[in-house]
C-alpha cells in the first residue's frame, strides 16, 4: 500500500490544523507562477476572497482583473490559451462554472483549450451566504463536458498540489475548493497524482469513497468503528477521468460502496461511481450528500449538522446503509 504520509496524529481532531483549501490553491498558483512564465491568472472581482491575490501580488503583469464578468473571463481565457498561455480563471464556483457554462462548453471544452478553472465557495461549506453561493451542482455540470478533468482536493495541502499538477495535464481542468477552513490531514510530503484514486485506509467490509473534506470524516469513522467493521477509505479527488480500476478492485473486495460528498447526489461523484459500477461490477450502493435541495444560510457547522454532512451525519448514513445491505 502506498505511504500517503498523512499528518501525525491526524485522527486527533484537536491536534489537526484547519485551513481553507482556497488558500492552498491560491498559494500553489502563486508558487507555480514563479516556475512557469506562461501562467496567467484571471479574476472576476473576487481576487481577495478567492485567493487569486497571492499570484496578483507577485506577478501583476500576468494578472488580469476582469471585474464582474464571468462570461468574458471565460472568453478571454480561451483567447489566451489559443495563444499558448496557461490561464487560471479563479472565482466562486457558482459564478465560475455555473454562470458561463455554455461559453465554457464552446470556447474551452470543445476546442480542448488548456484552461484551469479554480473555484472557491463549493458546497455547503460556503456557509452564511446561503444557497446562491453554495454551489452544489458544479461537479454534475463539469463532468458531463467532454475533455474536462474534474478535481476536488481533500484539503489545503492537496489543493496546493492539485493546481500545480493541473498545469501538466492536457485540455481543460476544473478544480473545486471550499471556502471554509477544513482539516489538513495530508502533508507537504504526501504524494499526489491527478487521476489516481488514493486508498488511504484498507478495509474488507465496505468501501467508503469521498472527496473534499468529507474524506477526513471517513477516516475518523473508519477508525472509530474498526472493532465492528473494516472500512476501506478512498479519496476520489479526481472525479473525471475516473480511476476505474481502483474503484472496481475495491468493490470486488468489499461488495458494498458508500459515497459521500458536499454536493448534490444528482450527478455528483457518487453518480459517477454508480455509472461505472452499475455497468462493470454492480454492488449495493448508497449515495450520501446534498439530497437534491437548496439549503439555507447558516454557519458551516450548523449546515453540516442539519444536512448531515458532518462526521456524525455521515456515520449515521453509512451505518444505516450497512444495516440495510447486510
Amino acid at each position, binding site marked *: 500500500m502506498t505511504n500517503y504520509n498523512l499528518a501525525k496524529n491526524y485522527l486527533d481532531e484537536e491536534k489537526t490544523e484547519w485551513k481553507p483549501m482556497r488558500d492552498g490553491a491560491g498559494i500553489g498558483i502563486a508558487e507555480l507562477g514563479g516556475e512557469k512564465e506562461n501562467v496567467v491568472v484571471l479574476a472576476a472581482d473576487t481576487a481577495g476572497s478567492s485567493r487569486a491575490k497571492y499570484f496578483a501580488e507577485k506577478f501583476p503583469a500576468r494578472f488580469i482583473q476582469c471585474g464582474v464578468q464571468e462570461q468574458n473571463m471565460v472568453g478571454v481565457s480561451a483567447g*489566451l490559451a489559443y495563444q499558448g*498561455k496557461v490561464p487560471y480563471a479563479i472565482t466562486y464556483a457558482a459564478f465560475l462554472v455555473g454562470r458561463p457554462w455554455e461559453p465554457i462548453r464552446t470556447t474551452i471544452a470543445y476546442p480542448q483549450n488548456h484552461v484551469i478553472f479554480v473555484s472557491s465557495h463549493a458546497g455547503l461549506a460556503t456557509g452564511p451566504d446561503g444557497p446562491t453561493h453554495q454551489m452544489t451542482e458544479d461537479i454534475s455540470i463539469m463532468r458531463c463536458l467532454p475533455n474536462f478533468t474534474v478535481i476536488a482536493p481533500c484539503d489545503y495541502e492537496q489543493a496546493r498540489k492539485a493546481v500545480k499538477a493541473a498545469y501538466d495535464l492536457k485540455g481543460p481542468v476544473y478544480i473545486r475548493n471550499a471556502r471554509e477552513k477544513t482539516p489538513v490531514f495530508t502533508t507537504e510530503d504526501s504524494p499526489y497524482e491527478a487521476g489516481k484514486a488514493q486508498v488511504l485506509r484498507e478495509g474488507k467490509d465496505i468501501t467508503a469513497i469521498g472527496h473534499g473534506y468529507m474524506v477526513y470524516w471517513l477516516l475518523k469513522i473508519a477508525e472509530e468503528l474498526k472493532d465492528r467493521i473494516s472500512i476501506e477509505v478512498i479519496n476520489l479527488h479526481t472525479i473525471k477521468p475516473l480511476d476505474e480500476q481502483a474503484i472496481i478492485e475495491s468493490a470486488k473486495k468489499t461488495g458494498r460502496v458508500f459515497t459521500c460528498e458536499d454536493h448534490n447526489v444528482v450527478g455528483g461523484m457518487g453518480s459517477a461511481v454508480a455509472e461505472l459500477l452499475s455497468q462493470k461490477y454492480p454492488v449495493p450502493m448508497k449515495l450520501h450528500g446534498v439530497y437534491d435541495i437548496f439549503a439555507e444560510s447558516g454557519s458551516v457547522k450548523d449546515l453540516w449538522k442539519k444536512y448531515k454532512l458532518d462526521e456524525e451525519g455521515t456515520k449515521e448514513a453509512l451505518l444505516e446503509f450497512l444495516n440495510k445491505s447486510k
Partner: protein
Amino acid sequence: MPTPSDSKIKELEKKANNIREDLVKMLIESGSGHSAGPLGQADIFTVFYFHVLKHDPQNPMWPERDRLILDVGHCVPIRYVAMAHAGYFPKKELMTLRKIGSRIEGHPNYLRMPALETTSGPLGEGLSQACGFAMAARMDGTDLDYHIWCIGSDGEQQEGMTWEAAMFAAKYRLSNLTYIIDRNNIQIDGYTEDIMPLEPLREKYEAFGWHVMEMNGHDMREIISTLEESKSIQEKPVLIIANTTPGKGIEFIENRFGWHGVPPGAGPEDVVPKEEQAKRALEELRTLRGRIEAEHD
C-alpha cells in the same frame, strides 16, 4: 500601405464574385447553411485574404500571422471559400460542407482546421476571445508584429457578453484589436431594430471608450483604407461598422431576413420557387460579374 491601383481593385472585385459563385454552389450542394450573411461579407473576406491580412496559406500557423477571429460562426462558409481560393485547402473540398467527416463543418471547428483560429457558433463569444488573443500578444511584446481582427454581426450585439468584452477591451486599451460589425440589419426572426434595437450603435461604442469608424462593406477601396487606418489608432480598440447588404449579389435574397439561415434551394418561395432558386442565384451572380467586367474593361 500605398493606395491600391484601379487594376488591383478590379481584380478584388472579380475575385469576390468568383468567391460568391463558389459559395452558392457550396450551399446548394450542402442543402443546409446560411446564405444572407456570408454573401454580404464576401467583399470583406476577399479584401482580408487577398490584400490586408498578413498570412501564409502554406504555413497557416505562422507565429507572426494576423489573427482573424470569426465571432459570427454561422457565416463561416464565406471564410471557407475565401480560404480555399487563397490556397489553404483544395477548392473541391468546399463540396463537403456540413457533411460527415468534413473538416469544414457547419460552424468553425478549430480542432479540424486550426487556421480558423477559434471554434465558434453561439453568438457574442468572439470579442472576448479576441481580447484574450490581444492580451497574450501584449504580454509577449509581440503586439506590433501582428494585428487581431474580429468579425462579428449586428445580431450578436444583443448578447450581454459582447458588452462585457467591449468594456474589457477599452479598459486594457487593446489598440492591437479591430472589431468589425457586419451591420446588415437582419437576424433570423426579422430586422434587428424590430427584434431588439441596437441603435445608436456608434454612440454606444464611443461611450464604451472605443474609436469607431464606418465603411461601405461592398466598396473595395473603402474597405481597404478603413481596415488599414484602424491599425494606426493608438490607445483605443477600434470598431468598424461595416454597412452591408445581406445576400449581396442575388437580388431575391438581398435584404430579406427569411434568407438568414437557409441555402438557395430551401428559401422562401414568395419570389422564386424552391426548384428555381439555385439556378437563378447562379445566373444572377454571373450577370453581376459580367456587369463588373463590363464596367472596367
